[in-house]
């Protein structure tokens, strides 16, 4: 909050975090996170549970409010508008508009169970963007085809397996044409044999140049698809860099002991 012109020099960065703090009461979950994500970059966030990686992800689309530091997406502060030297908190409507540009995929899928797969995917475009129903449905069918579920258009979420549900959830997020995709442990709730299909979809997405932040325990995916791996522990970034280097030759003891447990 010290930089008087936050728009300057952020042209190529999709996400920029400086000293981000977050606390629940006395429990400090994020203790000053610095991180940048360039356009088209795939950043994988790894770390033990409780390290704050999911919380940080949720701060990016303002599902959580940060208590300190500065967080900007695409050159604009999250949750605030800077006017002169003052920060004005955004109205609900403005927050919603910002969120609509960022896709999010949850560990527990969170599809709307009372709506068909097609309606799940068109819900954002039709209700939020006020797009016409016909073209939105065509687009939804294309997206379903892309995630390999063209035949599930009229199914309801609980008629699908976990892996299928997660791919629908990805299609639902993509229907909003997001400039950034956030994945919060997208494969952690899946049976092992279903993980591959979801990762394939994410790999394709990365190949198409989507900017992605992925909280994951899939080290293979992080190494293969990630441009950067960030290891978080205890609310701080311990180590970050090229996936192969971080995962095979970690510089910190904490990274080493974590990787020894998961690899």
């Amino acid at each position: 909050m010290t930089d008087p012109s936050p728009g300057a020099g952020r042209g190529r960065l999709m996400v920029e975090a400086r000293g981000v703090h977050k606390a629940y009461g006395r429990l400090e979950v994020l203790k000053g996170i610095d991180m940048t994500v360039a356009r088209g970059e795939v950043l994988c966030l790894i770390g033990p549970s409780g390290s704050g990686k999911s919380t940080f992800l949720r701060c990016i689309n303002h599902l959580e409010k940060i208590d300190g530091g500065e967080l900007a997406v695409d050159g604009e502060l999250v949750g605030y508008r800077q006017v002169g030297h003052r920060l004005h908190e955004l109205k609900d409507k403005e927050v919603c508009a910002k969120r609509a540009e960022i896709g999010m995929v949850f560990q527990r899928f969170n599809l709307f169970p009372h709506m068909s797969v097609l309606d799940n995917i068109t819900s954002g475009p039709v209700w939020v963007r006020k797009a016409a129903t016909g073209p939105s449905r065509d687009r939804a069918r294309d997206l379903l085809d892309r995630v390999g579920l063209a035949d599930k258009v009229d199914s309801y979420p609980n008629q699908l397996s976990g892996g299928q549900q997660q791919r629908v959830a990805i299609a639902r997020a993509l229907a909003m044409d997001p400039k950034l995709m956030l994945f919060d442990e997208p494969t952690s709730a899946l049976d092992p044999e279903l993980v591959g299909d979801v990762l394939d979809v994410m790999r394709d997405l990365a190949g198409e140049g989507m900017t992605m932040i992925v909280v994951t325990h899939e080290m293979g995916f992080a190494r293969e698809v990630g441009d950067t791996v960030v290891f978080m522990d205890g609310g701080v970034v311990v180590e970050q860099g090229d996936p192969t280097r971080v995962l095979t030759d970690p510089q910190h003891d904490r990274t080493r002991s974590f990787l020894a447990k998961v690899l």
Partner: protein
Amino acid sequence: MKVVPVRHPWRWVASAVILLLVAMLVNTLLFSHVVRGGTREGRFQWAVVGHYLFATPVLRGIVVTLELTVIAMVAGVIIGIVLAIMRLSPNRLLSGSAWVYIWFFRGTPVLVQLTFWYVGISYLYQHLTLGVPFGTALVTLNSTTLVTSFVAGALGLSLNEGAYMSEIVRAGIISVDEGQNEAAASLGMSKGLTLRRIVLPQAMRIIIPPTGNETISMLKTTSLVSVISGVDLFQATQNISNANYEVVPLLVVASLWYLFFTSVMTIGQYYIERHYARGSSRQLPPTPLQRLTAALRHTRTRPVPALSEAPWVAPHD
């Protein structure tokens, strides 16, 4: 080897007792006679029941009962939703005032409330004024002409029902997984849109059964308007029996009509529940009607479906 099934002798005893009681009931309802005032007549006087079942005053009473039920339930549901949202609001004044409302209306008997609206309002305020608070009056009305027994009944029942409905709606709203709110928010949906399109439709599954209960209860509670000189179904039958002293047959008339409408509501509730169960179970069981038509078709053509042909084969990736 021969399998000897377990015998259940007490079931046979219980069945015999029940059959005996049913026989006694049917006998006393239909076949027993009694001498009243020197003439021998059927104990339950079904002819009298039949004579008054569709009498004009009774039908008028039914209209009043149904009108009050519908008004009170519709208003009650609306008040209930508003109160539930207020109670879940982070604003203490909003949640607090909703709490006070519920505390007051659940804490006093509805009979007292009805009497209050009918008698109390006209006593406290001879004139009701519509206008700027503490300022100019635009319309002034006489309380006694405005608050008829019907208005007082509808008002009292609605306000009371709102308090109960709000707790039912609140239970429904908090039963919906928090992840649904987050998913909706991440798509850019506003809180209002999320509530309307995502949370409430799912909350309906929890809200509908107790609301059906409330509606059935309301149908019968409307009979309380008889104490504030409202002429509902019950009061209509009372008026007739006050004139001709046929007390029991007219109670039977009222009971038959109440039973008829509660039965209709029970069926309606069943189908509404099915509507909101979409997506909650993999395959809904057939309705009794579907089962009946299926059974009829079955006896005609007898295509026995093999187990593997069942349409609900569990999905797998």
